[in-house]
């Protein structure tokens, strides 16, 4: 038991207790949480900082406004309904199109048809706070539905493949791609059964995947190879993630991005308590990279400079040297 703990320590693996006590509590002041917990606010701040985000079609923040729903989506064939303060991808409806027969019926990403009434009920649940972190009243956001870049089409089963970058004090530290599976019901959360694949920060190329706690070479549903996919506009992704630090002020941050076929990388949300599974996906611990950043930390560095340092420091080759 202690032997395992020592080995993990040597491998620089970060544990939950240490993450909470040393990084989240120290670097993420609670007053800044609304900036990431309220996705409407995140979107506003990100837009102001010039970061790319999916367009916002409308916000419904009280039960009376629910009837505005039809009006908001009138001009859109596809859209996403999500709680502004949701967590773990819960309460998100992805509408990919309208039913051909009836204008007030919609098709979910899974192919299931849903009526406007049902969506209205879902929005009502969101507004009454069913999905909000604290159970308080919430807002429902209706926004642009991302048309995924085909890069991950082969290694995703429906849903939303996204890129998670951990940003420590403004420096991109570790990244992974989260690939939905049939088991994860199209969601990109690793603990729900999505595949996580580490990313070589230097080149933006995927490494081997991890399903639950096991290494996987191929996507369990599509059978396609996971490793070796080259992520487009990697430079821009890293720089945007690094900019998340300026936007939120959080020193330990998870930035979630998706790649749209037309608009390129977009920031979906940011997270003040990013999980630790990214270490399993990358096959390496966070602690060593974190202490390297502490050595190199420069308060005056721009996001682009910080992204460049991350590319220089955290290549897979460099990791091998460190081991």
């Amino acid at each position, binding site marked *: 038991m202690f032997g395992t703990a020592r080995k993990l320590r040597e*491998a620089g*693996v970060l*544990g939950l*207790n240490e993450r909470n006590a040393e990084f989240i509590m120290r670097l993420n002041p609670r007053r800044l949480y609304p900036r990431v917990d309220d996705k409407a606010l995140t979107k506003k701040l990100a837009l102001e900082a010039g970061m790319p985000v999916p367009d916002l079609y409308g916000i419904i923040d009280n039960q009376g406004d629910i009837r505005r729903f039809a009006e908001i989506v009138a001009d859109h064939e596809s859209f996403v309904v999500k709680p502004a303060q949701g967590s*773990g991808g819960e309460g998100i409806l992805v509408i990919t199109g309208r039913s051909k027969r009836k204008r007030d019926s919609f098709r979910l990403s899974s192919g299931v048809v849903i009526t406007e009434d049902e969506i209205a*009920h879902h929005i009502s*649940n969101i507004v*009454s706070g069913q999905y909000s972190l604290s159970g308080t009243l919430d807002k429902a956001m209706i926004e642009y539905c991302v048309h995924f870049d085909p890069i991950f089409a082969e290694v995703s089963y429906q849903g939303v493949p996204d890129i998670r970058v951990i940003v420590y004090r403004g420096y991109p530290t570790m990244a992974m791609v989260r690939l939905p599976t049939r088991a994860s019901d199209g969601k990109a959360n690793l603990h729900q059964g999505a595949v996580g694949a580490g990313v070589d920060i230097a080149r933006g190329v995927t490494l081997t995947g991890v399903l639950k*706690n096991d*290494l996987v070479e191929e996507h369990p549903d599509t059978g396609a190879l996971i490793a070796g996919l080259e992520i487009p506009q990697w430079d821009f992704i890293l720089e945007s993630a690094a900019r998340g630090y300026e936007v939120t002020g959080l020193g330990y941050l998870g930035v979630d991005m998706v790649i749209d076929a037309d608009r390129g990388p977009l920031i979906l949300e940011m997270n003040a308590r990013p999980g630790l599974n990214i270490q399993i996906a990358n096959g390496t611990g966070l602690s060593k990279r974190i202490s390297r950043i502490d050595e190199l930390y420069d308060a005056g560095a721009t996001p682009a400079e910080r992204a460049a340092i991350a590319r220089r420091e955290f290549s897979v080759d460099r990791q091998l040297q460190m081991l």
Partner: protein
Amino acid sequence: MTQRYVFVLAMLLTLVGSALFVYKWQVLGFPLSENQEISVWTIESSISFESGPGSIKVNLHIPTLTPGFRTLNENSVSRGYGFSLNYGSGGREAQWAIRRADGRQTIYYRITVYEDEGSEQADTTPPFPPPPAINEPFRTAVDVIVAEVREHSADTASFTTELLRRLNDPSPDPNAELLLSDVESGVDFVDVATTMLAAARIPARMVRGFELSGRQRNADLAPWLEVHDGDRWRFFDPTTGEENLPDRFFIWWRGNEQLVNVDGGSDVEVDFAIQEAHLDAIGIAKSQAAKSGATMFDFSLYSLPIQTQAVYAVLLMIPIGAFVMVVMRNIVGIDAFGTFMPVLIALAFRETKLVWGIVLFSVLIALGLSIRFLLERLRLLLVPRLSAVLIVVVLLMLLISLVSHKMGMETGLSVALFPMVIIAMTIERMSVVWEEKGAVDALRAGGGSLLVATIAYIFMDQGWLEHLVFTFPELLLIVLALVLLAGRYTGYRLLELGRFKALTNS
């Protein structure tokens, strides 16, 4: 920096907690375990006499220094008499006085004592006694024996033993025989021994007392010999010469004066009655604290009304449950619903007992969940939905109670003790997790809650622990210190070792 503050604070809390604990335990004698009973003896001396025509004054020697015993309380019963306590050469004396009295009078003095091995009382170091004035031919006999005994002994103790051995010899030498010619009782014998020890310039005195055991009427005072070796008083059995004091020998008074002296009365009779009782140790600590004026007891939970005490006996176990919770979640890493839900469930288990508790809890959650899934179809808003679940839970509890009562299983009635709001919230959260993350996650967190509740219950159900925390609430400061330390524990959780195992090979 924070780390250091937490350590210092935890140290302080532990220090204060343990200091109070040790003080209450060692000094005030609060018992460590429950139902710790101590034997207490009530010794009652009754003095009865015929009153004379004039004023009456009664002097009674009463216990002063009682090695091995502590006094719980003492009192005197005497109608119409003035009472005072004096210190005489033989120790304390109780004095009763009255101007006039008619007929036969009886005065009672009662003392209650309990055994305390550690009760060492400071006694005075006596001066060397002056050589006693003894007439011939006794003088020569004494001198001869003292000289002989001195030849055959090395120190005060061996001198005393040797002396007593000679005096007890069934075929005594002529000198001893001469000295013992007037001896009619044990008291006279000890008197002779004291005189001879005085002749050898050894401070000695007679002590009289009882061996306490059970219930005795007309208990006899036995004489014993006490000899000072220049350092402390030592006890000798006058009939054998061995140095010892019998177990539970309670010393009433010292010296060779009369036990009781009645001025103005005649036909005096003194009678001792001894009675043993068992008192729980808390009671003794309580009155001991009251006597010494320690305010600590005033602030202990035992000073509260009984009903309130019962409430606190339960409440004080919650921190123990919370501590178990901290360990299970932050150090082991088990998933559970709600922060304190398992602790509250464990609290309910105290009434239902473990097996029934788990059965009732599972039945309640299972039934509640299935009804919650039906409610899901109605598409209710959050607050009405939660309220509906709560009402369903209350009804289910009622149903379980009624059904189990009809079936003759009275344990089912205790389902009413489950915290219904907590159960309702658990059902709600479990159903949400079930819908969104699947049955596996929901059941795992539900099982985790039950596991933590069970472990918390096992600790909270320990009678000795409950007694300890109730008697020494300051121990909770130590629990608080431990929780603070756990709050700064940044090591791996036990279950993380398995989770990240793959990373150890890289």
